[in-house]
């Protein structure tokens, strides 16, 4: 998902960039530790300047998402551990993040972790429409939304009518 751009002319520029990109892409969501910020679509760009400083560009999922602060700290730590001393993390708003950016693989990881992945694509439902959310445990479509809001900004609370387990649904926005 993230673009990688090199501003270096030295022979190992692409190696450095690849190293920086890999380090930034390894950071996981603190609240959903099975998916990385790259899989989530939060990581937008990694650039290495001629002086070796790194600029990582991220975009917030939700405007008030408290995990963003943790993302920034974790990116700085990951790059520091990869040997980059000067790291700047920039936040951009446009284009606005959408759950559509999550890869199939990331959705599968969410499901395996017990979180139902977003159904359909953003902006496709009417005011009172409800998506058919499959239970991440038993696969049943006999599920019911308990609340539009769950343990984090990005999740809604559901329960399954077949296996009776409650579960989180990663909202489609």
């Amino acid at each position, binding site marked *: 998902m993230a673009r990688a751009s090199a501003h270096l002319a030295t022979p190992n520029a692409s190696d450095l960039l690849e190293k920086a990109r890999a380090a930034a892409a390894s950071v996981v969501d603190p609240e959903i530790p099975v998916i990385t910020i790259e899989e989530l679509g939060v990581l937008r760009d990694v650039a290495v300047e001629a002086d070796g400083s790194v600029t990582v560009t991220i975009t*917030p999922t*939700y*405007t*008030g998402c408290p995990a963003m602060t943790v993302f920034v700290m974790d990116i700085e730590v990951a790059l520091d551990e990869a040997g980059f001393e000067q790291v700047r993390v920039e936040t951009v708003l*446009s284009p606005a993040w959408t759950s559509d950016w999550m890869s199939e693989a990331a959705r599968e990881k969410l499901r395996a972790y017990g979180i139902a992945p977003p159904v359909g694509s*953003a902006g496709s439902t009417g005011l009172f429409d409800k998506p058919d959310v499959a239970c991440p445990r038993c696969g049943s479509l006999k599920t019911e939304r308990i*609340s539009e*809001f769950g343990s984090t900004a990005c999740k809604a609370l559901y329960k399954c009518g077949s296996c009776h387990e409650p579960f989180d649904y990663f909202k489609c926005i």
Partner: protein
Amino acid sequence: MANDLFTYTMRLADDAAILSQRLAGWCGHASHLEEDIALTNIALDQIGCARLLYAYAGEIEGKGRDEDALCFNRNEREFTNLLLLEQPNDDFAYAIVRQFFYSAYVLLFWQALKSSKDERLAGIAAKAEKEAAYHLRHSAEWVVRLGDGTEESRSRIEEAIEFLWMYTGEMFEMDEVATALAEQGIAVDAAAIKPAWNKSINEVFARADLSVPTGTWMQTGGRNGEHSEHLGHVLAPMQYLQRAYPGLVW
């Protein structure tokens, strides 16, 4: 022009901040746990939105005031939020109707502001629009549930609708600042989104067999810093820490 843009951005920031503080008042007090989480989640989205807008306003102003200075070090008369948003949490029905009237409006507002010639405002609008969509869904579902519920829930939501109706006119006002910016393609022509808002209100009320008030007398003043007596009580707990211990950080 820079001054108009600052004024306009501050209005939107104050709307988000004051509504956020009102919603946060439900923390630990909502009808049940899920609703407690819902209202505070919406509050969190509003804080996020307020921060983006205050930070931008501070940059436009260029006097070194950051988001905290703008939110915590201004007095009532300097706040320019909509009067609707400072109205008290007297009853759950009031909180729901307040949220519903505002969300139905602000969703249309952000959709229009997305094509603003001001890139920062357009970017913020594109984020906020997605969140306003599920804020509207949440409050609309509650409007139907309360209106179509028991005699008690119905009478309470009818009372809230009747009381808050007079605060809805302000959302569609266009003063000199908004008009000047709208002519430059920066601000939203709020008056133009009123028909769509009316349609949205009518549709949801019809589902619960609730009547749309016919009153045409509307309260005004928030955009000029003239508030109801409630705003000071919103600001007092919100600003206490920075007033008592200026510049304190966690």
